[in-house]
């Protein structure tokens, strides 16, 4: 699932609320069928998070960072799990390097390794390929596809990259000014807005044009959702 919207639409805010880093001003959040506010510390071991805007301690090496977070998540088979993520994310050559000395692409892979330590059932990613070169970004997307396919995890992705969203998400929530203004499968949205791709849909929504109202659409207006999103616990709880 992807959150799509312009700057300030509320994507990062939504992810922060799902992580319990930000308290919602109203309403409740249910994850895995449970109330996040009441069961946060019980639910957090089943989730993880990665963002280029949140960094790992620079003075620690890659391995030290993974060791610390493996302990924080209470993993019993730490050594095996750390070895596994190092292999999966091709970090073997970097394990003894301090995180502060790594390139942006390498840091992203390390942050993902940290996010994969506990094999999260729900993985929250805030612009996971921001500032990455196309090759590295493609590698990260392929890795996420493999992870999702192999472990059946739910991935909630906030991104500005339409290609990334079309590739990784089977459901998109379109956001504007803190509200969900439309939702659906990428192809459904493209068809509903009579557009060629998701980027054009994004522009329509960013410019407040409703589905089917574009001059070239030629058919009636469809409903615009205002928060009518399938509850997350329905999707996530079934994984």
């Amino acid at each position, binding site marked *: 699932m992807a959150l799509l919207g312009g700057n300030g639409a509320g994507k990062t805010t939504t992810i922060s609320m799902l992580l319990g880093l930000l308290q919602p001003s109203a309403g409740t959040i249910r994850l895995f069928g449970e109330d996040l506010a009441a069961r946060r510390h019980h639910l*957090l071991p089943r989730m993880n998070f990665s963002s280029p805007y949140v960094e790992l301690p620079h003075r620690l090496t890659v391995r030290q960072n993974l060791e610390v977070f493996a302990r924080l998540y209470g993993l019993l088979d730490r050594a095996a799990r750390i070895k596994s993520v190092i292999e999966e994310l091709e970090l073997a050559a970097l394990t003894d390097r301090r995180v502060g000395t790594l390139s942006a692409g390498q840091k992203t892979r390390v942050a993902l390794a940290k996010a994969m330590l506990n094999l999260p059932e729900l993985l929250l990613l805030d612009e996971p390929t921001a500032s990455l070169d196309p090759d590295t970004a493609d590698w990260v997307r392929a890795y996420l596809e493999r992870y999702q396919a192999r472990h059946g995890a*739910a991935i909630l992705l906030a991104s500005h990259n339409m290609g990334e969203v079309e590739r990784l998400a089977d459901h998109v929530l379109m956001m504007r000014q803190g509200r969900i203004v439309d939702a659906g499968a990428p192809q459904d949205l493209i068809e509903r807005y009579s557009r060629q791709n998701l980027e054009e849909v994004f522009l329509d929504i960013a410019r407040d044009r409703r589905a089917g109202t574009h001059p070239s659409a030629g058919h009636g207006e469809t409903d615009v959702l205002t928060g009518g999103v399938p509850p997350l616990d329905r999707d996530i709880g079934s994984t």
Partner: protein
Amino acid sequence: MMSDRHPTATPRFRDSTLSRIAAMVLRHFYVLRTSWPRLIEMAYWPTMQMIIWGFFSTFLYAHSSWLANAFGVLISAVMLWDVLFRSQLGFSLSFLEELWSRNLANLFCSPLRPIEHIAALIVMALVRALIGVLPAMLLAIPFYGFSIFSMGLPLGAFFFNLMIMGCGLGLIVSAMILRFGLAAENLAWFLVFMLAPISCVYYPVEILPSWLRVISWSLPSTYVFEGMRAVLFDHVFRWDYFGASVGLNALLMTVGLGIYLYAFALARKRGLLLQVGE
């Protein structure tokens, strides 16, 4: 995003508070272990203080009847003051490390609880205080023939009380940093020095004007330094001072914890956990 999760994929977990506290202590050990300039800096200032005040004491010893009664009083005061200063600094700097590295969101979206984080910071305050003052305490023996360890068990009581007070102040400083961001960082360096004149580190409380004594006696540190002088001059351990210091420290820790948890809740309400440090 609906699919079948691989049944063998789930790793084995242990929901252990101690394990999470150990993880945070380990995180700071990794930093200290690989940073010898930082270790030297931590021991440098207490050692320099001890040397300066030690020679000054040697001079005064021959010229002051007050000091002639207890040679080590100034050196002990210097070293115990550093226990308080280093504990507060150790707590606050370990907290600041997370902000400087923009790691706070990673920590608090993990199962780490705020209270476990605080416990780890207290352990690090103890470690940093020991690294800071232990070399100075040991060096005073060959330099001046004075061992602070000759105080015996009361030294442990003084150390304990000053360390807890340092952590209480560290909690308040950390809460201010959570609330106001890195703009409040300098509090970590100067807050404790505001208390130095009224803690009566180097002189008895009677020196202060009477109105200031009331404030002075409301600090746990004042009882420690008065207690220290009682041990060195009169060779008695003042249980009343010890009790008062423990009581005031309990109050300080309770208030500090309350302020910190309030600031943390406020940070969650305003989304500061993601923004702070940027």
